[in-house]
């Protein structure tokens, strides 16, 4: 098991290094390859009617005229050792891990990410709990009551849930529950849990449900399919033949086997969401990672986009790692290989 974990850790670190190179290439190598000049790239960082001097200044400030390898080395070094940027009369420090410096926000990307992380975690974890519990229960019940009205209506709702985009369900739920009925506060009311736990909770109920609806629908369908398959397994028949109560057969034998592949997907989904739930955060104006990146994309704030991409990749790699380890814990067969 220890060897297994060590192997996975090494793989994860390698993966991150590759992701950082690939990301850097996408943002800097490909534009260059497509004929973008350092000045052209710098012009994204300066206002309109910028004088050639201002653009040249930005080129220098951002070191865009250096060879790409040097730029990557500086970038990689920044992550490990930090670097400084000019802000005008003073230098701005970007301490390690320096994921870049956003000239739109006048601050290093890393603290911004950390600042946005609690909102994203709040949203992702809350929604994950809701969708896992509701999705799996609905899926199990549907599978056990296969073909009944209950099953069919649950699956119809689930189909709708998978098909409806979040900006639709989100805006409709806001319109109904926040502005018409006034049960929940509207968008943009997210408050840090440390500031006001009650407000934090109230403001997140609608986003949680909206986001969870989509995933719950997906998980209900997955669970149902998995459950139907598992219930046909020989070992379920064995469990019944032992004289186990049906409830025990379902919870102890069937569910455990069904949940294992779902756990994998769940881990990856949560990992993905920790890198930012773009649509939900945008719709409800929650200042999380996803909101940060979508705004950065709109505002051409490349350092932030780059930083978030790496950050998100980190979470996915981490989630992958955790899922691998958990899978080994859950399924003894994995440990062998």
């Amino acid at each position: 098991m220890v060897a297994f974990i060590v192997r996975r850790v090494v793989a994860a670190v390698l993966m991150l290094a590759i992701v950082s190179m690939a990301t850097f290439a996408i943002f800097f190598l490909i534009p260059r390859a497509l004929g973008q000049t350092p000045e052209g790239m710098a012009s994204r960082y300066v206002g309109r009617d910028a004088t050639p001097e201002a653009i040249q200044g930005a080129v220098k400030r951002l070191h865009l005229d250096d060879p790409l390898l040097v730029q990557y080395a500086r970038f990689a070094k920044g992550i490990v050792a930090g670097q400084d940027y000019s802000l005008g009369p003073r230098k701005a420090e970007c301490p390690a891990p320096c994921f870049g410096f956003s000239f739109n926000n006048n601050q290093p990307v890393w603290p911004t990410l950390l600042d946005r992380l609690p909102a994203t975690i709040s949203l992702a974890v809350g929604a994950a709990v809701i969708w896992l519990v509701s999705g799996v229960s609905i899926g199990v019940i549907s599978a056990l009551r296969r073909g009944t009205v209950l099953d069919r209506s649950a699956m119809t709702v689930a189909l709708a849930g998978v098909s409806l985009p979040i900006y639709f369900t989100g805006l409709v739920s806001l319109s109904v529950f926040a502005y018409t009925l006034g049960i929940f506060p509207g968008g943009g009311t997210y408050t840090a849990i440390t500031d006001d736990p009650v407000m934090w909770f109230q403001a997140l109920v609608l986003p949680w449900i909206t986001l969870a609806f989509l995933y719950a629908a997906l998980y209900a369908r997955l669970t149902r399919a998995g459950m139907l398959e598992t219930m046909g397994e020989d070992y379920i028949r064995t469990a019944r033949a032992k004289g186990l109560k049906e409830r025990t057969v379902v919870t102890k034998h069937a569910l455990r086997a069904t949940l294992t592949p779902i756990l994998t997907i769940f881990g990856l989904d949560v990992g993905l969401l920790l890198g930012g739930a773009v649509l939900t955060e945008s719709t409800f104006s929650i200042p999380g990672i996803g909101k940060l990146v979508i705004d950065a994309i709109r505002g051409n704030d490349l350092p932030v986009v780059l930083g978030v991409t790496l950050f998100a990749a980190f979470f996915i790699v981490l989630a992958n790692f955790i899922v691998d380890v958990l899978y080994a814990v859950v399924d003894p067969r994995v440990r062998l290989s």
Partner: protein
Amino acid sequence: MRKTNALALAALGTALTMGLAACGGTAGGGNTGTGNQSTGAASAGAKHNDAYTKVVNASDAKGGTLKFALSDEPDSMDPGNTYYAWNWNFSRLYARPLMTYVPAPGDEGLKLVPDLAEGPGEVSDDGKTWTYKIKKGIKYDDGTEVKAADVKYAIARSNFTDELTDGPKYFAEYLDAGDYKGPYKDKNLDDFKGIETPDDYTVVFKLKAPFSEFDFLVANPQSAPVPQAKDTGIDYEKTVASTGPYKIESHEVGKHFHLVKNENWDPATDTTRKQLPDRIEVQFKQNAEDIDQRLLSGQIHVDLAGTGVQTAARAKIVADPKLKDSSDNPFTPFNRYAMMSVNVKPFDNIDCRKAVQYATDKVATQTPWGGPLGGEIGTTAMTPTTVGYKQFDLYPSTDHKGDVAKAKEHLTACGQPNGFETNIAVRGDRTKEVQVAEALQASLDKVGIKATIKKYPSGDWSAQYAGKPDFVHKNNLGIMIAGWGSDWPSGFGFLSQLVDGRFIKPSGNYNMMELNDKAINDLLDKGIQTTDAAERNEIWSQVDQKVMESAAFMSFVYEKTLIFRPSNLTNVYVHPAYGMYDYTWLGVQQ
């Protein structure tokens, strides 16, 4: 002009003749320009467009929190480093430029009054020296007094440094500052020769050439004073030293901006602002549709951008008379138009350009903007809210639906009786502009002109594509669809960048039609040296005529917007200089 809500500031000159002023012909509101700012209609009786002509919900009641939301984020909240129209309006809450606008709806609001200055600038005989005396006893929020050097420093940092790149650079263009490197590289402010401060209360601007609309330039928030010791470069937006009725309580970049009352602001020195709410809160980067819902339900008071509600809310407002009565439909500074490159065949022939002018069904090209609420059909280069604007139409057709017969006549005159092939360049990520291109394509098809739509990214639109004449010629871009809103609503502000042939740049060019007519260039030079406003405005009108005669410029619409005022918002009127509500006057009902 890249930022769609960057402002047309009105540099109308101090002696502006309001008879020629811009607001004539605004739709909906009908008669504007009464200048009656305090009729104080109660909200109950307020009608659609009422805030366009008078103060709705007038009240001097203090207290409460005024809440703004913005779907975007500002380039910067630093008054010296912003190009957003709303921010030139909003930043006055904590920054006082030398001059500002009369707080009134209609034509009156286009007049300038002294703010930090004691009076309008005194111009020297050669027109190259402008002197402002600043009021004594104006303090920052920390209690220290504002000095002339702070104004000088503010302009030095905003116009002459590499770091503050977001605002306009007019002072750098017009001031005679040699090769001054800016205060971040050269700490000695005395090296900045473009501005002199003979004493603590006098600021003297030294110009390269006469510029009769200079009072306009100092109405930009860039002239608001900045103490050198407090400057932290691009980070200064978090800690701006306030001279206005409010000061910054907290500013989390990209998240929120909170203002509280500034006790060191003395209303006796300030004739244009009020200080009604206890605090002002701005949320950035909010979902645009959600902002509208919150606005309609009264949970927030103002959509800070002032660019109007989204499609869904627009439909809701138009359908509900009650909601409609709480909305206004002002012009924005924008003209939405097509330019035909005079250097791309066959548009080098004026008759081919005229054929396009006649062929275009402008009702069809108005639709993508949202119909009459989104814009009035345009026939000139200047917009109705530009001083010097005169209504005329050189290429008339019944109901603006196009005149196929006339178009064919000109095609024949151009030697292309069966039409020709050309390209329409458009910013591919601007849905409305793409739809306009499609409508135009359909119009042209009727007279035999086969146009292909070429889409380019808006990010590099002026740097790499339509703004790069080489690229335009090489790719045969006969027609380019664009928009312009000037930084001040005089003819000069509107036209100089668009039609002055001497401004054609190899890249980043806005005169995409490459019109280079000596008569037009000379008129622009003559106008900016003319101190008599009436005479000057007449010259702008002549320029507009000549531009339209060239047939290279074709306006689709003068853009309009639909903005909403919740009933709990008090003291509301549309400030004509900004095309949105006057943010320094607003109060909230408790």
